[in-house]
């Protein structure tokens, strides 16, 4: 599904990613953990196509295709989805209108007609129930005045609507109370299949109790310094990140 080879990326000439190698196969869940400033969010943004970052070396292959030259929307059309750590507030655009536009623009890019309004409504109903989202919420301006939990649920609702092949959840657990965390994780788990893959980026192990990863990678100073199974997450939770840093520096 996703293959990242020796990826180097920088912003304003400051190198952030310094040689990432990662392979994610369909049906897998990967967790990327690491201390603050290690490059986790940068990795997510670079995969999703944020233009401020410059890839200086290496490449990103999505189903064998190098996506570096593709714009963010083209990557989305190919099935990449990024759940934002800090979803943007957009006054004046309702959640419903936003998601409708996103779906129909994606369909347009694939040469398909707009989704019939009836099907759209049905899908919105189903997916909002999955995320326990109130219908009234959908007519509000996108993320404006939403609580932290509402914003994250709204991200996963969009993921449910867009049915991506590769979903990257960037710190989706931050700002969530335990109930919201459960709802979000439950949503992600229901959307998981053998045909898609999920990358969970998190600072804490908490979310991984609910979304159980097949692999855990530790990112430090722009590189993956350690990979393992789900038990690695527990080890990190218990021991913190310092021992990793020491191991690396040794």
């Amino acid at each position, binding site marked *: 599904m996703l293959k990242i080879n020796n990826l180097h990326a920088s912003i304003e000439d400051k190198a952030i990613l310094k040689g990432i190698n990662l392979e994610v196969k369909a049906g897998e869940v990967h967790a990327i953990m690491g201390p603050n400033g290690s490059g986790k969010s940068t990795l997510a943004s670079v995969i*999703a*196509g*944020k*233009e*401020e970052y410059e890839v200086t070396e290496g490449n990103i292959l999505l189903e064998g295709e190098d996506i570096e030259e593709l*714009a*963010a*929307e083209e*990557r*989305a*059309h190919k099935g*990449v*989805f*990024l759940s*934002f750590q800090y*979803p*943007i507030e*957009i*006054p*004046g*655009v*309702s959640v419903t*209108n*936003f*998601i*409708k*536009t*996103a*779906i*129909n*623009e*994606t369909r347009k*890019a694939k040469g398909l007609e707009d989704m019939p309004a009836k099907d759209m409504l049905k899908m919105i109903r189903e997916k909002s129930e999955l995320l326990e989202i109130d219908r009234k919420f959908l007519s509000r*301006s996108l993320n404006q005045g939403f609580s932290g939990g509402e914003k994250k649920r709204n991200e996963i609702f*969009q993921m449910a609507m*867009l049915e991506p092949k590769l979903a990257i959840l960037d710190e989706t657990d931050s700002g969530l109370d335990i109930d919201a965390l459960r709802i979000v994780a439950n949503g992600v788990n229901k959307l998981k299949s053998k045909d898609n893959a999920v990358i969970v980026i998190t600072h804490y192990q908490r979310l991984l109790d609910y979304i159980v990863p097949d692999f855990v990678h530790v990112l430090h100073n722009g590189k993956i310094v350690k990979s393992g199974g789900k038990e690695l997450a527990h080890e990190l939770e218990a021991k913190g990140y310092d021992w990793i840093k020491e191991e690396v520096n040794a």
Partner: protein
Amino acid sequence: MSLKEKLVSSFMAFEDTVDVHSSVHDIRTEAIKTFEAEGFPSKRQEDWKYTSLNSILKHDYSVFPKNENALEFKDIKKYFIHEIDSYKIIFIDGKYSSHLSQTTHDGLDVCLMSAALTKPKYKVIIDNYFNKIAKKDGLSSLNTAFSMEGAYINIPKNKVVEKPIQIIHFSTGNEAAVMLQPRNLIVVNENSHVQIIERHQSLTDNPVLTNSVTEIFANKRAIVDYYKIQNDRQSASLIDNTFINQKQESLAKVHTFSFGGKLIRNNLEFYQNGERIDSTMKGITIIGDKQHVDHNTLVHHIEPNCESHQDYKGIFDDSSTGVFNGKVVVEKLAQKTNAFQANNNILISDKASINTKPQLEIFADDVKCSHGCTIGQLDESAMFYLRSRGIPEKEARALLMFAFSNNVLDSVKIPEIKNRITKIIANKLGVNIGFDL
């Protein structure tokens, strides 16, 4: 011969076509003298510092269109809000088109200025209202001097006019260049309610200059909803002078949607002559190329306990330029005034510019007045957010721009107008997405 000289010398020819013994003619004669003395405004005048008329005054305009031109409804239907039943006062090259119009005298007058200015039965209204609040500056005086045709609307007491009234001026382009001086008079009496839509539309790329004057009288507890749709070709320029006199507890709202034309200057003035008056003016300006739109507003708070609300959004692309000059005067007597003004702008291109200038002159001490203007760019993080969801750059930009100007549409009470404006905006931004919110 300059345009000014041409206009002044044409006045004698104009006099041959009108009754020189009427009281209106004295007003016209006075007005041409004012125009002769003042001429067209120049950038040396404070109010015209950022708007130069030079480029549009250089054409050799025909000041009295010679031909009677006709148009078929099917060819121009798209310029009407045709989805609704409405009264229509339609002009082609400054001449009334009975064929396209739908007027009435049934319990209200929705008809022609030329009739009102000449027929005895309208004399009292004309004497009481005509040219009573129009400014006596060069441009308005020029219009007054040649005032003959336009819309005349008189709504008696206690009348809610269900059907909106559309006033549309078409220019056929059958002459090389045309200057038009439409003159509208709208009197809305006690407890009455009227909705008006005004549009100027040229049909070819021959230059058109319209210098329009509209006087509106909202009497006690009257409600006036006025919509100006400015989406003309880039060969057409418009100077719109609108003056509104309000009596106690009246409500007047003007929405100005400026998307097209080469140069647009909106002089919009409200005079509050009574208590508990509400004056609202809102606008969306979206322009590009070398277009220029100037909103010059005035609210004159004369008596206590009144409100005014101004909300103008502007989006400027390419080398377009915008001006917002919003003046609020609060007289000493006008205690407990609430006056709000907002002007928010987005510059899409490095070459676009906006000059925004709030001007508050407050002589009362117990008032709430606020103003705020912003100039910014589109939020790049919002752009990435939308694009990461599969919305292409152009559509994402359009969605953000629409969202930015959207709240101006909240107060549009006719859904068909809202839909039309939404479509014009989508078209203007070159996208085919529904902004249905």
